[in-house]
């Protein structure tokens, strides 16, 4: 794993220090600073902390990460489909994998060198141990969790973007994710395509779907990223 895509505050500080230390004129003040007693307590460095960047790029990286997660999930399913899948369902999972793969690759190409993993030697691995991938019920439960979360993530993130063309592009993706979500829900529980747990059923906002902030989404998905800890600190919040 390349250091450059994971926060290394310690390393950065050190580099800054060396650059400053190299300027001889500043040496005297550095020595004085070294005598100062209010040395800040060093923040512990988490080598597994993944930061996503800021502004629109950070948000694209966040959605790119979620597309990676879904692609990896479906890839696992189609590589070893549960024995009790029903006729035609393997083909559905193939399609779902293909769509998520196209989404993932599109975002990767748009991000280019800004992709959080552009310099990684191998793609991020995900931890699906919280799911049961050996049964139809288990993979459908996992698919529903990821698809509903994906829809809520896109729906909540687009208002934070500043670029109109990016909003236009991602709006093309979110409705396909909603189609996926409705399908896997129908496969799991017939008629649950827009169940009350994802479409608000009471109050002034009834009949609209959930929208979640990056903080909420990452909190819900954090088990899949382990041992990586995804930081949303640099992402816009308004």
């Amino acid at each position, binding site marked *: 794993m390349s250091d450059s895509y994971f926060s290394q505050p310690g390393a950065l500080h050190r580099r800054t220090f060396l650059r400053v230390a190299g300027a001889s004129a500043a040496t005297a003040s550095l020595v004085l600073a070294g005598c100062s007693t209010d040395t800040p307590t060093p923040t512990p460095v988490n080598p597994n902390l993944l930061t996503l960047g800021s502004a629109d790029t950070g948000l694209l990286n966040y959605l790119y990460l979620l597309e990676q997660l879904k692609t990896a999930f479906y890839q696992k399913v189609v590589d070893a489909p549960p024995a009790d899948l029903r006729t035609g369902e393997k083909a559905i999972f193939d399609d779902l994998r*293909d769509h998520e793969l196209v989404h993932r690759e599109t975002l990767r190409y748009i991000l280019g060198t800004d992709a959080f993993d552009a310099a990684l030697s191998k793609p991020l691995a995900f931890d699906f141990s919280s799911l049961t991938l050996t049964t139809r019920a288990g993979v459908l439960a996992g698919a529903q969790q990821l698809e509903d979360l994906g829809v809520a993530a896109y*729906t909540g993130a687009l208002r934070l973007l500043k670029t109109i063309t990016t909003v*236009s592009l991602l*709006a093309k993706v979110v409705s396909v994710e909603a189609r996926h979500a409705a399908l896997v829900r129908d496969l799991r529980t017939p008629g649950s395509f*827009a169940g009350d747990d994802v479409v608000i059923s009471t109050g*002034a906002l009834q009949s609209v779907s*959930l*929208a979640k902030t990056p903080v909420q989404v990452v909190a819900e998905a954090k088990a899949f990223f382990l041992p990586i800890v995804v930081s949303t600190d640099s992402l816009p919040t308004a």
Partner: protein
Amino acid sequence: MNFFKIIEQLAEVDSDALGRFDSRRAVFQSLGTFAKRSALATTPVLLGSMFQKAYAGTSVDTPIDILNYALTLELLEADFYRQFVAAGTATGAGVAAIAQIKKHEDAHVALLTNVIKALGGTPKTGVKFKTSAFPAAYADQLVVAQVLEDTGVRAYKGRAAELTATADQNITGIGNVNLLTVALQIHSVEARHASHIRYMRGKNPWVTTGEDVSSNAAYTGAIPESNVTQAGFNLTTQLGTPYSAADVAASFDEPLTPAEVLDMSRAGGLVG
């Protein structure tokens, strides 16, 4: 493709259409530059992006206009499902599904009406689904439902970006809402409906090429549902690994412009 024909038609609905481009010469120059760089010059995508450029930043429509446009479609859908339920043709699990979708469309009408009022606008009313366009057979009613839902998805998408980076609004009775988020929250419910109606029909839940409804105008347009180019990349050839046109097209839903949606060949022809 007759490029000037498009401009002329555009000028009919927007008298300033030509003024949005620097000049006819500039249009041709940009066409030439693009043509040299890529073979996309003859595709609608290039035209689409050119018009997008010409119209970018124009704010002829206020959020109230955009919401009223959405309300028009929701009223049309709500009245369609009112007729659907009244027809009593649905069977089995279809009864509950149609009832639930109707409930959602009714609630979308109420929500948009409230928001438009709160913003000081006059909400659209009285849009009805043309009774003569309502088919007798259940299977045909489901086809219309699918076309309407897919159109709704495309219509919201066509305008959502106009609400990019708008400030939250404090709406009486609802609280602080972001209009883009609300539009997307409705949009994804429409997509869930479309998915389910398609599932009920035994079709793919996503828009695929070569479907029984593919020739319906609802799936055509300046950017048809069969589009394979996103963000300047031809996704079938330019992502390192080749992907099939079918997968690529199914992975993205495409927008329709208001003029396209309200055209007589699409939703406009169902109002009556």
